[in-house]
């Protein structure tokens, strides 16, 4: 219980401990604590940002999906329109072609008819003369009667 030089020894020890603590213990521990605080703050901030980004991305994706659907509908509509147009065109073409072929066929028929008529006419003259010869029993002056025969043939 006596006060003695222990006082000085204890003061010295205390001073040394405090200085050691101040130099070699406190700063590294505080630094680690601060770094961890910063890390956690950064992590939270990153999470927030990621959440916002996700929301944005979801919005964007939804919008794009809607646009794509709309576009698809438009394309289908256009295609439908186009296909009906093509069908109409094809129908028209077919009709025109049919018409044309019909006209050509008719022309050909007419030509054939005319040709047949010409042939017939030519043969009629001969036949008429031959018939007449048989009936008259003599030769008919073809030249003299040709005018008559031609008249006949023209009447056919």
């Amino acid at each position, binding site marked *: 219980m006596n006060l003695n030089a222990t006082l000085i020894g204890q*003061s010295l*020890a205390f001073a040394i401990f*405090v200085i050691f603590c101040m130099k070699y213990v406190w700063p590294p*521990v505080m630094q680690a604590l601060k770094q961890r605080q*910063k890390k956690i703050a950064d992590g939270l901030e990153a999470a927030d940002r990621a959440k916002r980004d996700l929301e944005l991305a979801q919005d964007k994706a939804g919008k794009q999906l809607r646009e794509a659907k709309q576009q698809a509908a438009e394309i289908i509509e256009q295609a439908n329109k186009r296909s009906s147009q093509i069908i109409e065109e094809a129908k028209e073409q077919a009709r025109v072609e049919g018409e044309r072929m019909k006209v050509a066929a008719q022309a050909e028929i007419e030509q054939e008819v005319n040709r047949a008529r010409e042939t017939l006419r030519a043969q009629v003259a001969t036949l008429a003369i031959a018939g007449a010869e048989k009936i008259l029993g003599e030769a008919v002056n073809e030249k003299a009667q040709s005018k008559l025969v031609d008249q006949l043939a023209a009447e056919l």
Partner: protein
Amino acid sequence: MATENQTSAEYIQHHLQNLTFGRLPEGFERVDHHGKVVETLTDSAWTIAHNAAEAKAMGFWALHLDTLGWSIFLGVLFLYLFRKAAIYATSGVPGALQNFVELMVEFVDTNVKDTFHGRNALIAPLALTIFVWVFLMNLMDLVPVDWLPLIATQLGIPFMKVVPTTDPNATIAMALAVFGLIIYYSIKVKGVGGFVGELTLHPFNHWSLIPFNFLLEFVGLLAKPVSLALRLFGNLYAGELIFILIALIPVWWAQWFLSVPWAIFHILIIVLQAFIFMMLTIVYLSMAHEDH
């Protein structure tokens, strides 16, 4: 645990005597515990005191080897553990030791920041050192009172007082160091004039009341280290004394019925006293930084 050749008074005195190393003066008569003179010193001698009278005769220039030894051992233990944690401190997932150290550091740091608002690199580590060191020294009080002194006696060491904070030298030394810091920072922050002004022109700012102010303020200033040292010493000394008194009760089961509850209650006291010493240090130093 008073033995047959030791009275209760001797037992208590034995437990309250520090292991003192110092110089016995020339002509000093060394006696054994029956009071018989064993030898008369013809020359002054550096030695270990074998009883209270010898320790007293050694005067101021003597050392309490047990107080110094235990307190330095505990201080080194504290710094070793904390330094180890500090070296391997990582900002990632902390280990058990780092976790504990961080807990203590944050606890102290919060208390310092709540009380002290200036910028000072010393105060927080100072508070941490005080808190942990005082706590560890107080903790020695929970070691059963007879264990270490008994081992010491077997080893031929006459005295062994294991709780450094029951030695006023330890608490006064810390209080004086804090007092020195109070004066240093008072003068550094406010200047000599400011510090003297604080002592003399407060609380009544009139020249005729300077002596009265000085008396008030000086007593107030001195009361800081005195109360700091005596509060810690008194609490721990009383606690130690009660452990010793309980140990003296001859009924063997009284140890558990009295010593255990007192030890459990004492856990509160040792933490509280360490905390109070730390907090008051912070408060006093923050007052020293404040300009009126």
